[in-house]
């Protein structure tokens, strides 16, 4: 009887712990269990603190996530975006870095465009807009350059 008890209790504990871990990793950490969707890349002059895992939105609706951030050969920030399958991005699409509110999180805003050609999986978004640097704007204003 005592034996069964030990295994049962430990089993319940481990499963509960794993369930919590899974919730954190999959729901909050956006761990891709079944890698669905496709990738596109985009290069920015400045992403000012955007983190991998940040949201990608079209018209305010979340359609994907920033999967990785690297420095490209031209000292620009190269983002790999994972987008929902079925989302159509045209080759005149514009990707811009925005902030939610003044102190909110950074995210990537996509305007999908409307040309005839689509960007294929693995393709690149050409038109990008860097983040607005509030500090820069403010300092320009103070020093009277605006």
């Amino acid at each position, binding site marked *: 009887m005592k034996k069964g008890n030990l295994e049962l209790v*430990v089993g319940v*504990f481990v499963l509960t*712990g794993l369930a*919590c871990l899974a919730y954190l990793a999959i729901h909050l*950490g956006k761990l891709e269990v079944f890698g669905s969707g496709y990738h596109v890349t985009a290069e920015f002059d400045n992403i000012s603190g955007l983190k991998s*895992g*940040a949201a990608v939105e079209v018209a305010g609706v979340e359609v994907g996530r920033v999967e990785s951030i690297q420095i490209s050969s031209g000292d620009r920030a190269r983002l790999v975006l994972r987008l929902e399958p079925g989302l159509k991005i045209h080759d005149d699409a514009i990707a811009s870095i925005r902030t939610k509110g003044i102190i909110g999180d950074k995210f990537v805003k996509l305007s999908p465009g409307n040309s005839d050609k689509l960007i294929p999986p693995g393709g690149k978004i050409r038109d990008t807009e860097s983040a607005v640097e509030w500090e820069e704007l403010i300092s320009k204003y103070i020093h009277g350059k605006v």
Partner: protein
Amino acid sequence: MDNLLRLWGRWVLSLVQDAGRMILFLFEGLGLAFVPPFRGRRFLQEIQLIGVKSCLIVLLTAAFTGMVLALQGYYTLRKYGSEGALGSAVALSLIREMGPVLTALMVSARAGSAVTAEIGIMRITEQLDALDTMAVNPMQYVVMPKLIAGLVAVPLLTAIFDVTGILGGYLIGVVLLGVSSGTYFSGMVQSVVPLDINGGIVKSLVFGLTIILVACYKGYYTEHGAEGVSRATNQTVVLSAILVLAWDYVLTSFFM
């Protein structure tokens, strides 16, 4: 002056020596995990001792931590009109800092001291010697399963802590203070990135190993009878708390 310097030097020397012995102890203990017999049952017993028995205290601490974070966060964020960030404030504080650190401190107070007392008593009543004379390596029978259990149980407890804390924060933030439920959870999902989760897991692995290592080491080298056991238990709690907080600083600076 000369005397003071010598005293100081001796103290530093013994500290370094102690640290070295602890590292060797760790390597020996972990190395024995790969040598038969594997003692699966002993491992289950230690998960029970270190993990299951710490559950209640971890749940209580987590619920109150989440509630306090929500309360503090709400009144601070309201000044800037950003109550919407409450979910992410609670989740990030829990996952990055409070979860791993408070879980480690609670486990060390609850299980670490118990481990030291158990091994210390086995030392002074010659049970460790008895194992040895029965051709059973006491490091492998007593210490190794505890180290592995610490490595497994503490991350699981930390995950339980995080989730419980998030629910505690929900209780105060959403149910009591009226932040909308959708805002609370979507803010959380928005702002938590994989690096936060990974950082939290790495922290909890390191903390788990650290506190159980200290507890086993202090117990294993207990001397001078019952008084020695109480001193070793005391040292375990103090030393593991200091090490956890120091490690936390180092690891945080790695993951930022």
